[in-house]
């Protein structure tokens, strides 16, 4: 489902924030927050708790006024024309904001009417969306009887009633079981596939890695890194070959055999009997390593090329100046 990450014909960004500031008491929730999200892409906003992700989403979706800076969503200024932003963008907040006493269909009809649809239009749209989100059979049941994943899907369906240009999803899988999480991922991928721009905040890096074309990493109220997930991983130090050996002696042999094979020296971990060799040339280095091990008559338990995970990138960036 992931696109190539390159922009479709240089349209205006769907979301543009410049120098947003927001202070709560003595805390700078946002401290010069800049963001550009390309139209039609999924943009992941990552950050540890308290980094300001939700504050950013609240300002962009016009719930909260910034103390400083400017922002445009779907071409409308959040401060000067919040009404236009609200018509063109949908917000899916941290907790599923559906009426739990009402049925799924009743919820969607109510939200549709609030968005300006006539009763019959709202009903037709509700039925379409219930079908599309796999809730048709549960349409009459009160939302309180839904599973977490179903409630979230209803919540997302409510955000799609007017075909928004932009959809804000604030930690949509928080508190869901694996089944519910996969359901939500599928829904997000389908929403992105039809060209809706999605701004997704999350703490699950796997989620960002799977869904987002671009990722911004936040810390203390500002963006500290941005790029496609693969770009960020490359910045973190590139590929390496990992080799598992049966015992410490084998590990040491492998280390000696591979010295100089790819340039940098191999690292041998005596406890896990693992040998790590930087592989700046990727698979070419892997082939070279395999040839050398073969020539030396060494047969490791496992050998593979490994890329840094987004988790490693994230931890390295967000914990740099701490400790």
């Amino acid at each position, binding site marked *: 489902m992931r696109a190539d990450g390159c922009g479709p014909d240089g349209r205006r960004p769907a979301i543009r924030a410049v120098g947003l500031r927001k202070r709560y008491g003595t805390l700078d929730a946002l401290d010069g927050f800049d963001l550009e999200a390309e139209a039609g892409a999924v943009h992941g906003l990552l950050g540890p708790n308290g980094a300001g992700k939700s504050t950013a989403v609240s300002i962009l*979706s*016009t*719930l*909260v*006024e910034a103390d400083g800076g400017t922002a445009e969503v779907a071409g409308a200024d959040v401060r000067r024309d919040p*009404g236009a932003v*609200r*018509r063109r*963008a*949908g*917000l899916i*907040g*941290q*907790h*599923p*904001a*559906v*009426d*739990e*006493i*009402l*049925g799924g269909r*009743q919820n969607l009809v*109510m*939200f549709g*009417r*609030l*968005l*300006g*649809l006539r009763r019959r*239009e709202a009903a037709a*749209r509700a039925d*379409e*969306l219930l*079908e*599309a*989100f*796999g809730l*048709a059979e549960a349409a009459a049941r*009160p939302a309180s009887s839904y599973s977490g*994943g*179903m409630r979230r*899907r209803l919540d997302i369906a*409510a955000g*799609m*009633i*007017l*075909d928004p240009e932009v959809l804000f999803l604030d930690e949509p899988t928080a508190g869901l079981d694996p089944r519910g999480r*996969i*359901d939500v991922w*599928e*829904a997000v991928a*389908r*929403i992105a*596939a*039809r060209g809706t721009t999605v701004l997704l905040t999350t703490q699950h890096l796997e989620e960002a890695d799977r869904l987002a074309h671009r990722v911004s990493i936040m810390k203390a109220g500002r963006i500290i890194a941005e790029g496609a997930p693969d770009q960020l991983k490359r910045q973190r130090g590139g590929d390496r070959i990992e080799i598992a050996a049966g015992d410490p002696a084998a590990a040491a042999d492998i280390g000696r055999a591979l010295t100089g094979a790819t340039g940098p020296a191999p690292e041998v971990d005596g406890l896990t009997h693992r040998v790590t060799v930087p592989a700046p040339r990727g698979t070419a280095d892997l082939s070279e390593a395999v040839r050398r091990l073969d020539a030396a008559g060494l047969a490791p338990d496992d050998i593979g090329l490994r890329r840094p995970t987004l988790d490693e990138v994230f931890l390295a960036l967000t914990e740099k100046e701490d400790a």
Partner: protein
Amino acid sequence: MSAHTAGPIPRRTGAAPSRRIGTLHGGWILTQRELAHWARQPATPVFSLLFTIMLLLMFAFIFGGSIRLPGGGDYIQFLLPGMMALAMMFGVESTMTAMAADAKKGITDRFRSMPLGDASVSLGRVGADMVGSAVELAILIGGGLLLGWRTTGSPAAAAAAVLLLLWLRFALLWAGICLGLTVGRHQGAETLVQVLVWPVGFLSTVFAAPELMPPWLGALAAWNPVSATATAVRELFGSPTGVTVGWLAEHAVLAAVLWPLALTAVLLPLSARAYRRLRR
């Protein structure tokens, strides 16, 4: 795709709604939401009615026999209109709880992220609670008639009494909205309000005549807005008022018009401000 999810998400057909819906229209849709709640979950309104009826029966039969009235009169005739005023006042609590619940669940934020007039959310609450209170009043009147309470005033006076009761409810609704939007999110504050409605409701002419209280307490009770409405409504229904001296005895109806007016004049702007301040 899993079995849970069907085909692609369909695009909406038909023209986009060009303008946002009017504030009143939004309020009406949200009023209907609440009415749908009652249809789905009738236990909630039924329990709140049972509570009012229980209070009525307790005072009519347990305490009623030992309370006498200055100026004479039957206690049940005195009690009924007072209970109606008290029920209107206790509505503060349910309004606050409902507003706070929507805020806590993020539903208020969803409404705020939609192209709705700022006042729609509060108006929806007003509409629903006014309908609820009208039903509650009807049941209290019906129950009162069963217990032997009678109105001796003209039908026009009785209608005016009902309007004054709803007028008090309307004014205090804004207190509930304001509290729900501000302190309602904190469980402790919510409980405090739920406790405080009792002394505020009881320190009035609802259950006993102020003339029989210690003078300072009686004065306080006479100044309670609930007392103004209770006394005015008693007058209009032709029930004994229990108030024979003082300003309230002379001008109860005027007080029952002015008190809610003053409360609304203060609390409505405060509620609007509380709603706007959610953006902070």
